[in-house]
């Protein structure tokens, strides 16, 4: 069974600070996706990284896929209250199934 561990589980920081969320596994994935989920809604895709070592930027969010394609990180610069939510990583193994991480609950304090 493929497992994706996210850390930290909870993170509460002040507006304007920087943060990094980690997604780690002992398994290799063909791609890694990041989702954000608001309360009472389904997760929404933020980005997909495919190549080992790949870095993608989405405004203040920077996503990196590990060289060995076993881990990923999400870095947020100058966090804003609108960044608050549950962040989920999900790994694809080349078939029709995604394995989701344990989630990071992020709260940005104004």
């Amino acid at each position, binding site marked *: 069974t493929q497992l*994706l561990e*996210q850390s930290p589980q909870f993170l509460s920081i002040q507006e304007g600070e920087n943060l990094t969320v980690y997604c780690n596994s002992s398994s290799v994935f*063909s*791609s890694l*996706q990041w*989702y954000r989920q608001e309360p*009472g*809604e*389904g*997760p*929404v*895709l933020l980005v*997909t990284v*495919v190549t080992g070592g790949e870095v993608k930027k989405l405004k203040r969010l920077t996503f990196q896929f590990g060289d060995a394609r076993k881990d990923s990180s999400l870095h947020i610069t100058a966090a804003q209250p609108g960044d608050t939510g*549950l962040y*989920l990583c*999900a790994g*694809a193994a*080349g*078939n*029709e*199934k*995604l*394995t*989701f*991480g*344990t*989630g990071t*609950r992020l709260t940005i304090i104004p």
Partner: protein
Amino acid sequence: SQTIHQWPATLVQPVGSPLSLECTVEGTSNPNLYWYRQAAGRGLQLLFYSVGIGQISSEVPQNLSASRPQDRQFILSSKKLLLSDSGFYLCAWMGGAGNSPLHFGNGTRLTVT
């Protein structure tokens, strides 16, 4: 454009009662369809997925079952609910295999009393 509808949004059911949650997708053909369950504020557990009509793969042996009677319809059922079936149930579709993203419905909050 593609849309996914999931209902009901909330449901309160007594222990031992049956369950039927429905999910339909519009604007796409032959999607892969998924049912996930989410514990409060945590990750998603894959329950069932389907790559075509009548094709159901079960990931976790439990009190639930799934059916796909039509190409874009996915149903999650139970004959007798348990307290442990409470949770947030999410339906999703994927347009292809591999690196394609999942598109989620807005979920059903099920409380078994």
